[in-house]
């Protein structure tokens, strides 16, 4: 079950894939204030191997502050973070090697080439010898910049810079990859490439923390999502769990000619149809698993003497969940 009270790490999240596995990240009761303003208030969650966890929330919700504390960039007021069993703090240098951090800004050096950027950060993470060129080549292939590797990055497009930004975070093969809104300002093609890369990395076993304010990205990538707003995690769970918070029913709108009332009566008899409301020119239904039930709905409507001219299915999504939880739209 997903609700705000369960956000303080460690509890059952409904993900059977991670239940029996030691979490890669354990963040507990993170707190951060700036004067009177509370930026993060008791945030906590776990991420297991191969799991992609999304922090979904609008700008200013506390996403970046949270991951800044997780990555040891920011001195926290309270709480704890362990990655791969080791405590993370600003001064804990060696433990940070388990994290690959991809900041929201394009954190690359414009005067250096892509390869020089990778080499510098690879060396900072202690990769050396013949291993470093090998990993650089691997990463350049993954991010699709192998043929531009020796060009200065100030000559790159925004999408290329964004991909290199991610590549640097991958170079040392971290246990936990933290991506802070990696697709902001990216063209659709590069965005799709980035999302595909994240999916591939997850399949390869990497734990991923992904912050975004794009609902579609969270739905596509994340095994679990924490909905964050005003520094608190309002709800957490799989997409289905979160949608369940507002009633897990799809809305089906049928455009019909003929008797809508008779059609509605017949449709109510279908197992899985909770409501069928006739109105002028059509019937609106609330159903469980609309896509599975749609053939039966059309068949019954036709048998009831209605001619179906159009169908629209509206599934509840995270946007609706966020609206339900906060009273605001995700992009307000």
């Amino acid at each position, binding site marked *: 079950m997903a609700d705000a009270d369960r956000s303080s790490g460690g509890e059952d999240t409904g993900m059977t894939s991670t239940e029996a596995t030691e979490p890669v990240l354990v963040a507990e009761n993170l707190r951060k204030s700036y004067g009177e303003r509370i930026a993060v208030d008791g945030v906590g969650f776990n991420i297991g191997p191969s799991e992609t966890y999304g922090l979904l929330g609008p700008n200013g919700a506390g996403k970046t502050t949270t991951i800044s504390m997780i990555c040891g*960039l920011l001195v926290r007021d309270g709480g704890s973070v362990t990655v791969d069993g080791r405590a993370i703090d600003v001064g804990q240098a060696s433990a940070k090697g388990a994290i690959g951090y991809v900041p929201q800004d394009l*954190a690359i*050096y414009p*005067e*250096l080439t892509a390869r*020089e950027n990778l080499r510098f950060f690879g060396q*900072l993470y202690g990769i050396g010898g013949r291993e470093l060129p090998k990993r650089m080549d691997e990463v350049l292939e993954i991010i699709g910049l192998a043929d531009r590797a020796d060009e200065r990055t100030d000559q790159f497009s925004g999408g290329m810079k964004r991909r290199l930004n991610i590549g640097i975070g991958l170079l040392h093969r971290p246990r936990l990859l933290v991506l802070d809104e990696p697709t902001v300002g990216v063209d659709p093609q590069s965005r799709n490439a980035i999302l595909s890369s994240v999916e591939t990395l997850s399949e390869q076993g990497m734990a991923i923390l992904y912050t975004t304010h794009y609902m579609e990205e969270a739905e596509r990538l994340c095994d679990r999502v924490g909905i964050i707003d005003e520094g608190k995690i309002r709800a957490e769970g799989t997409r289905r769990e979160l949608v369940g918070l507002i009633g897990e029913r799809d809305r089906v709108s049928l455009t019909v000619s003929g008797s809508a009332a008779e059609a509605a009566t017949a449709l109510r008899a279908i197992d899985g149809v909770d409501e069928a409301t006739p109105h002028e020119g059509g019937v609106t239904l609330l159903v469980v698993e609309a896509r599975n039930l749609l053939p039966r709905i059309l068949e019954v409507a036709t048998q009831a003497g209605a001619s179906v001219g159009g169908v629209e299915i509206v599934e509840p999504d995270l946007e609706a969940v966020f609206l339900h939880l906060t009273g605001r739209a995700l992009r307000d």
Partner: protein
Amino acid sequence: MRAALLIAAKDLRERLRDRTALIVAVIAPFGLAAILGTVIPSGDGSLDLRYAIADADGSPVSTAFLEGPLAGLSDAGIAEITPVDGADAARAAVDDDEADAAFLIPAGFGEASRGTAAAEIELITRADASIAGQIGQSVAEQFAAELDAVRLSVVAAVAAGGVPPDPDEIARLASSAAEASSEPPPIVVEVASTEVAEVDSRTYYAASMAIFFLFFTASFGPLSLLNERRQGTLARLVAAPIHPWAIVLGKSLGSFILGIVATGVLVVASTLILGARWGDPFGVAVLVLAAVTAASGITGLVTTLARTEQQADGLNSIVAVTLAVLGGTFIPLSQAPEILGQIGLITPHAWFLDGLDELAVPASGIGAVLLPTGVLLLIGLVTGAIGLVRARRLVVTR
């Protein structure tokens, strides 16, 4: 330390690709030093004296004056000696600025040196050539003193019943007396004393421009910290498995190395191309190291007082120009009011230039720059320590 070196190397690579850094670190100071050193005369810092001499005597004694002390000045490259015909020509040479001073040796000078009357050499100087007058007077008086001693000895010998010596013998005795003196010839002492005061203008402007621009070069490291914070790479550095101090040290080290290399290039280039004379290489190296330390410390501290890169850039520029003006970078403090000379002692610029003046003394070495070096290091270490602590606060966000 490895991480600090990596960051320093990365910063240097970035700086070398940024042509503005090359301009600020080397081209601008060298160009300005070349222009100022050429256009602005050396003043009293460089001796290039011109003497006319009218020898109406032509005796062995007057010849001894010409071939002795005056030839010594000429051989030392201090003065150009031009014989002229008669006293009027000598006066005209001085009046027409063809000579800074003139020696008039009257007819009978050699003869007088054998008798009881004093032998006189007249020195004509211009009011605006006091150095030439002082040196000329010193040379003439010294020769006269030596000659007088010989003459009195001769007179005493004659009075005792001896035979008056030949004038050639008197001249030989006078020269021998001067050479035999255990004290160095006064003129040599005077010239050396003049060179202690200041280096020549080419060296002066090469040095002053070097330290002036050093403050801009040294600010690259601290400024790049703010730059990295703005562009997001600082967060990436902090996220790496390195200690925050490594970032601060790496930034400081990068600009420190750049400062040393840039100043070293300026020293060599100004020596080879402009003819600057910096003095003992080891002493210069120590002085440069200390100056770079001071500049790095001050710029590091000033930069951390700012919130943004632009603010820091502005603050550094104000501090660099103010210290340069007070420190005698544009106008030598020796030519400024005394109070300015006292105020200038709070600036690294004044101590650096003072150290170079010390090194201009012949045969001086590192011992001559111990005080300026110590002061520069003290300034650098105190301001640098505060700056490093403040810089760490920029790295570790609270």
